[in-house]
């Protein structure tokens, strides 16, 4: 008999069987499920076998970009005429969940590319900007990054110091951005800077332009399989046709963040499910005191709480996706989902790691890597605190940031 055994994968200690406790599958379309199986197959084939080593070596595999482009994982909701797939937002969410199951670094790259680079060019860009950049970004021939955060401005981007000066034929860009995903490998950067009237403007800056450099930040303990770095602008000449024509003020970058945060709310569930899948199976195999550790009430409490939290997060994400498809998802709802689901994932990673005991700290299992990654995820795209403040301000009407 020819048994079709799935290829043994050293970095996949257990077959991946994510939980679906509330039959959320029934809420997904046939297409969403094909999307999910396609991305899952790619992650199993391309990411899982190398990701532990990549994280150890602090290495980003650039081939991921090309492969994600071929898959169509960049800009799935962008219309096909610009190279996207014209899918809905639930499909985008499903893609993010599957990618983050592989590693938050891969999801981060796809988030930045899709929501922070393609989305603003599609939404705010001129027709020429769209035609020039979107197809290359969709195929992965061009790599993009997003520069908002600065050394002195994180949670408060309104205080940004990067500036553009109108020189008649072009703008002159000066300033520095920090903590920028994909910075040193990017071909183009969507950069936000203030004009002479203090109004935030967005623009597309190309890597080759004189005065632009993008050094990498080393020594991270998180998202080690993703590139993070700076963007430094020293009298960079930005042609006027590279500035987004209409959008002015912080609304521009905040709209991008909304799209990315939405994706993260889905993505974090993937990391959590990978941790749970590992912890559940390990607890059934590992014996102490002559019993599988899954037979002890304390471990069952942990597992029961984890699967409950994952289920709640799935429902939150699904409902948010429905609202987003209908154009009704508010920024505050997106904040709540990002805030809840990332914290959930981080807690799940911590609890799951304990279930594995000492084994949990090794790279033979994915949990510790997810846990370290999620420390970034809970900080970027608005820290956990800032999202709570957004919810607080939304429900009380009192703004408590300043």
């Amino acid at each position, binding site marked *: *008999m*020819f*048994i*079709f*055994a*799935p290829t043994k994968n050293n970095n996949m200690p257990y*077959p*991946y*069987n994510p939980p*679906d406790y509330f039959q959320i599958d029934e809420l997904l379309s*046939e*297409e969403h*499920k*094909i*999307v999910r*199986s*396609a991305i899952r*197959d*790619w992650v199993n*084939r391309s990411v899982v076998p190398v990701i532990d080593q990549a994280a150890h070596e602090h290495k980003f595999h650039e081939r991921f970009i090309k492969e994600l482009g*071929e*898959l*169509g*994982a960049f800009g*799935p909701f962008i219309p*096909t005429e610009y190279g996207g*797939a*014209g*899918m809905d937002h639930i*499909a985008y969410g499903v*893609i993010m969940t599957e990618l983050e199951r592989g590693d938050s670094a891969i999801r981060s790259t796809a988030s930045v590319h899709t929501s922070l680079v393609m989305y603003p060019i599609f939404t705010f860009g001129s027709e020429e900007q769209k035609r020039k950049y979107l197809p290359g970004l969709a195929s992965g021939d061009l790599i993009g990054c997003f520069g908002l955060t600065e050394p002195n401005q994180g949670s408060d981007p309104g205080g940004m110091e990067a500036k553009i000066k109108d020189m008649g034929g072009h703008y002159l860009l000066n300033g520095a951005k920090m903590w920028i995903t994909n910075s040193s490998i990017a071909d183009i950067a969507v950069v936000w800077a203030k004009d002479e009237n203090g109004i935030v403007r967005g623009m597309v800056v190309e890597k080759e332009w004189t005065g632009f450099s993008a050094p990498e930040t080393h020594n991270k303990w998180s998202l080690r399989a993703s590139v993070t770095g700076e963007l430094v602008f020293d009298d960079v000449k930005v042609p006027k046709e590279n500035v987004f024509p209409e959008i002015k003020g912080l609304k521009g970058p905040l709209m991008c963040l909304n799209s990315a945060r939405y994706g993260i709310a889905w993505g974090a569930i993937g990391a959590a499910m990978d941790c749970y899948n590992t912890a559940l199976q390990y607890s059934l195999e590992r014996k102490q005191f002559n019993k599988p550790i899954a037979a002890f009430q304390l471990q069952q409490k942990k597992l029961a709480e984890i699967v409950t939290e994952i289920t709640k997060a799935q429902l939150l994400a699904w409902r948010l996706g429905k609202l987003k498809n209908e154009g009704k998802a508010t920024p505050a709802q997106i904040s709540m989902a990002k805030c809840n689901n990332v914290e959930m994932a981080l807690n799940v990673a911590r609890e799951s790691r304990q279930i594995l005991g000492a084994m949990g700290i090794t790279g033979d299992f994915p949990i510790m890597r997810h846990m370290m990654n999620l420390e970034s995820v809970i900080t970027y795209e608005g820290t956990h605190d800032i999202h709570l403040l957004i919810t607080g301000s939304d429900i009380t009407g009192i703004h408590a940031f300043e």
Partner: protein
Amino acid sequence: MKILVCVSNVPDTTTKIKLSGDMHSVDLANVQWIINPWDELALTRALELKEASEGKIEKVTVMLVGAKSAEPTMRKALAIGADDAVRVDAEPLDAYFVAGQIAGAIKDENYDLVFCGIESSDYNGSAMGSMLSEFMNIPSVSSVSKVEMDDDQIVVNREIAGGFEVVVPELPFVAIVQKGITKEPRIPSMRGIMMARKKPLKVVEASGLEALTEFVKYEPPQPKAACKMIDADNVAELVDLLHNEAKII
């Protein structure tokens, strides 16, 4: 030239199979369904041949005998790149039934090459491909591990003990394929998934043909008996146990 790829809808290979209490059915709740892995390889190879054929192969069709619930699997085949799909609306009862239904549904279509997987990963019957060629009255080649197109000929490698045989069958024929026919099954792209929406998926009525076998019940293998360990030096005890307890010597 036209290629037909027969596909079946099977539980994911990592599924833990549970039987119902009366041993009469498999509990299908929460089962994820996939394209039978060998069929997926065949489809991938068919598409590669089409792409390399410079227009000579104009169409790759997927064919499935199954209920409507198998349509997501066909949609996936279309997303991977098949041009159109045909479903015979009937439960696939046995290999004879499936082969007869397929042969009936395509008798006017003149496919030049028909791909089948060497078996399906659910029941591992390994009979459908050869039965289909009988029904169609055309040759079949089994254990095919390589298919190439050379002008208008199809050249296949057939695995035999210790090596392989190179065969150029007369067209049309049924190629019953093995692993190795292509490197990896193709993963559908997001654009492919969207395009699949618009591709034709035709449903045809089943013919009056009946299955030849009757399913009685499932029987799981006997649970493993406890294993007695005997010291390597203690041959006398081993012989005694084999003689008096196991009663095999």
